[in-house]
């Protein structure tokens, strides 16, 4: 049995959860196995069925309203073991990054954290993942009987494959004593698309000359329904908030489209974005290293190009 761990916000499944549902269904088909999902909070079972997973272990317990890696890992491990789990799939998101390693120890299961493709099962159980910040791919063989895969976001597109979903109410032994952290508050950046989940990202750097010039970047993001990002240089001088910083020390992202405006493409920046599917670079310097990593480019001044770019986007379909 393949079991996928999914998460919902206000009952709606996160995009990364739709991807792991798709992944679990594909692995089950490939291995002639079955697949089920675990959700520790309430979520829409129909949505689970829509992505091809016909069984949902649902825990209805208010204790799980706030994330705690210790209690959550224990609960997931219990349900996984009680239902004959062999392969556990989690999203490689903020929570998944904390849960998967814990579960590797708890279940004595080999882990590939950040997998980017389906497992190959012709010779053992082998899964690829990006290493050296996208400069290479490593093929990991998992030797243990139980296996854990956490799936990097945007590695496989979520695919609908509708089936009916049976909801099984799952019990756990978790008590308040299993929780080791106390939730105080969350500070969300309102109205924005979370950068880590975004399909489309518009990013800018020092080439914009000052924070007052970001209007055209935000406009572009709005037309596209994209998230905004920035280089380290501009986050460090507070032109843009830190949570927008992508790169080696910031967030690593892999959207379908990454548009870089006025960013030279230093190796530390590329480390965070090079696994994007399509990269567009707009820069005045034809020698900017970013052009070597780009799919499309314009050598030109952002102040001249962006208004035209936004106008063309609007004309296209928006």
């Amino acid at each position: 049995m393949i079991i996928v761990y999914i998460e919902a916000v206000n009952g709606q499944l996160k995009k990364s959860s739709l991807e792991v549902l798709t992944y679990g269904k594909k692995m089950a088909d490939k291995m002639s196995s079955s697949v089920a999902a675990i959700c520790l909070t309430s979520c829409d079972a129909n949505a689970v069925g829509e992505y091809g997973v016909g069984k949902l272990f649902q825990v209805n317990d208010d204790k799980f309203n706030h994330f705690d890696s210790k209690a959550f890992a224990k609960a997931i491990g219990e349900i996984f073991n009680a239902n004959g789990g062999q392969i556990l799939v989690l999203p490689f998101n903020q929570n998944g990054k904390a849960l998967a390693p814990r579960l590797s120890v708890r279940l004595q299961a080999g882990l590939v954290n950040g997998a980017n493709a389906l497992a190959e099962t012709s010779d053992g159980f082998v899964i690829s993942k990006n290493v050296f910040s996208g400069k290479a791919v490593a093929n990991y063989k998992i030797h243990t009987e139980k296996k854990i895969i956490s799936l990097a976001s945007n590695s496989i597109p979520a695919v609908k494959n509708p089936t009916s979903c049976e909801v099984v109410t799952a019990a756990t032994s978790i008590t308040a004593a299993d929780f080791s952290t106390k939730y105080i508050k969350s500070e969300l950046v309102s109205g924005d698309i979370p950068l880590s989940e975004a399909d489309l990202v518009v990013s800018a750097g020092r080439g914009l000359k000052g924070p007052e010039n970001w209007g055209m970047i935000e406009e572009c993001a709005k037309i596209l329904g994209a998230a905004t990002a920035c280089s380290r240089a501009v986050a460090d001088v507070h032109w843009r908030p830190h949570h927008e910083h992508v790169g080696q020390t910031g967030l690593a992202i892999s959207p379908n489209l990454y548009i870089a405006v006025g960013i030279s493409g230093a190796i530390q920046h590329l480390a965070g974005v090079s696994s994007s599917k399509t990269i567009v670079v707009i820069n005045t310097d034809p020698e900017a290293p970013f052009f070597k990593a780009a799919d499309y480019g314009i050598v030109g001044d952002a102040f001249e190009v962006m208004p035209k770019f936004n106008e063309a986007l609007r004309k296209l379909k928006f």
Partner: protein
Amino acid sequence: MNFLVCVSKVPDTTAKIAFKDNNTKFSSDGVTYILNPTDEWYALVRALELKEAAGAGKVTVINVGSSENDQYLRKALAIGADDAVLIESADDLEPFYVAKEIANYAKANGYDIVITGKETIDYNSFSVGGMIAEFMDAAFVSQVSKWDMNGTTATLNREIEGGEEVIEVNVPFVISAQKGMAEQRLPNMKGIMMAKSKPLTKLAAVGGDTFVSINKFDEPKPKSAVKLFSVDEVEALVKALHDEAKVI
């Protein structure tokens, strides 16, 4: 309060990544190694700041790796750590056993707070911190950008999708550090001199059955050359993104 800070050595950010033995092993020929940036800049420096603020306790740095890694631990001592532990093993020991060694050391020596960087920049696995916590049956908070202590209680900001969450946790706990937690400290001459006489203990790793291993490395798929458009062809670029790349 005693802090155990886990530090890795990793190829320098600008190092050429190459492989040998039919692409089964990383080639370290000509590679310069550095302390993993998030370990050094954030985990270590914040532990030092909190120890200094408390006016008591110590900061120990620990590495699991080859016997030559003492030079990287000496750098951490020069930045300000009080002592260092090197658990000798192969450099490519898998995260499960690295974590097990560190957790065993932490438990045996009474460390209630263990800190790692959020990830190492070589294998990008985000794994060791969570594994240590599970071995210690302790709390684990990942990707922490702000960390304050009040007695034995920590207040932490952790990254979540689209923002941050503020939580409190009591010792024992493990956290993984990211940008925002502290600013890089450069070792000064006094620190470098003092580092030479600070204690550095060497122990031997135990290891165990393989959980995961790397079969083979691949180069990333080569990028085709960039398609350039002139400033007057912006509409053609948008059309290409729509019709050819099919991303908008």
